């Protein structure tokens, strides 16, 4: 036992010597950053710099991490009336039978009508914990179904209440980009939610919406049921050519 410890202490000594040598070389960090072609004008000379090399325990060791879109609950702390969205994907090339293994992205605005997005100015940064709120990705099950937990979308000027949907094949090839509209009129979810704090003054209804107004048969309108207290359930089917 004692001998083992002695050998171990020798090993620690042996490890620390190369570190000292390493410290006077050009840093591995600098090498990483400068390799490749860089961007125009941003690389300054590193000639003669003498910086330290890492001298701490490695880790945490990286593991493969799925896109942060991949989750069923996309609320990310946004408040509003609960909405459970059940979207089924059918294959037009197979009599609209359920399409399993398709990737379904959805995104919609929050109660105030804002999407998760950068503000746009070049210097702006974002907190990495909740940057992609109200955006999600699921893979259809054997019944072609995906389920998302979210909040009832708010609205913004010029558009009726809607949810964006992008359907991909299992390998990520785009199959359909579409939007889900909501039923309107007395007793409907849109009327019950009443535009959250904004009200519905200035609201654009489906028949005036530049995306939904050509949908005379209501094929883009989801079935939505529920109450403010219990939340709403939305069901919708998207048929794609796969």
């Amino acid at each position: 036992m004692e001998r083992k410890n002695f050998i171990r202490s020798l090993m620690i000594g042996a490890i620390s010597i190369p570190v000292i040598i390493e410290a006077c070389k050009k840093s591995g960090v600098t090498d990483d950053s400068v390799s490749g072609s860089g961007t125009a004008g941003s690389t300054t000379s590193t000639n003669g710099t003498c910086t330290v090399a890492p001298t701490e325990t490695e880790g945490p060791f990286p593991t493969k991490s799925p896109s942060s879109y991949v989750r069923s609950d996309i609320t990310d702390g946004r408040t509003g009336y609960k909405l459970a969205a059940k979207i089924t994907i059918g294959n037009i090339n197979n009599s609209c039978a359920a399409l399993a293994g398709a990737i379904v992205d959805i995104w919609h605005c929050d109660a105030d009508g804002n999407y998760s997005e950068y503000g746009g100015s070049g210097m702006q940064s974002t907190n990495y914990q909740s940057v992609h709120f109200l955006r999600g990705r699921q893979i259809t099950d054997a019944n072609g179904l995906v389920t998302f937990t979210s909040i009832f979308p708010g609205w913004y000027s010029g558009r009726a209440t809607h949810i964006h949907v992008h359907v991909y094949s299992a390998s990520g090839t785009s199959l359909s980009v579409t939007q889900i509209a909501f039923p309107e009129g007395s007793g409907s979810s849109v009327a019950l939610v009443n535009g959250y704090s904004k009200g519905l003054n200035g609201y654009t209804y489906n028949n005036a919406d530049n995306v939904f107004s050509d949908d005379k048969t209501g094929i883009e309108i989801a079935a939505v049921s529920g109450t403010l207290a219990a939340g709403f359930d939305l069901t919708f089917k998207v048929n794609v050519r796969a």
Partner: protein
Amino acid sequence: MPKKVITICYRKIIDDSNLNYWDKFVHEDSFLEFKMQSQFYNQEEKYTTFAEIMLNVPDADKLHFLVSAAITGYLRQLNGIIPDILDNLGRRFLTFENFKFEIINSDINNIEKHKIAINFFSKPMIWHDSINDFLLVSQQHEVDEDEVFTNLFQLPPFVSIHSIKKST
């Protein structure tokens, strides 16, 4: 010298030549996400490069944001510590919550052309003094203390002072 509160930006460039696992995962996953998300802005499949899409499609600059979802899981794995940047004792010492992701170049048919940058923005730090080429900084705390622990470091390439304000 009067105390100043600064934030540091480290612009980490990742391309096909990066060898460590974290960088490789970020490179591969952001490329796959770019291939998926760019189809929204390229529905007629007219373009293959990021530059062409940016030049020809309005709103395509949202791709920076949309693709960044592929890498935020990896940012979480860093536990709030900015990678690569060391103080003069050889320790990582910069902490962050904020970032900005950029696609520099890409091509849906060629991962070798895929090149991205992650800008890490440090939490505010107090810049006490400069000693030769080194900055002497410490974490900013709510209350003023008589004695604070400091970090001494040199600004390597791709690291800059992002913001500055006089300490109150």
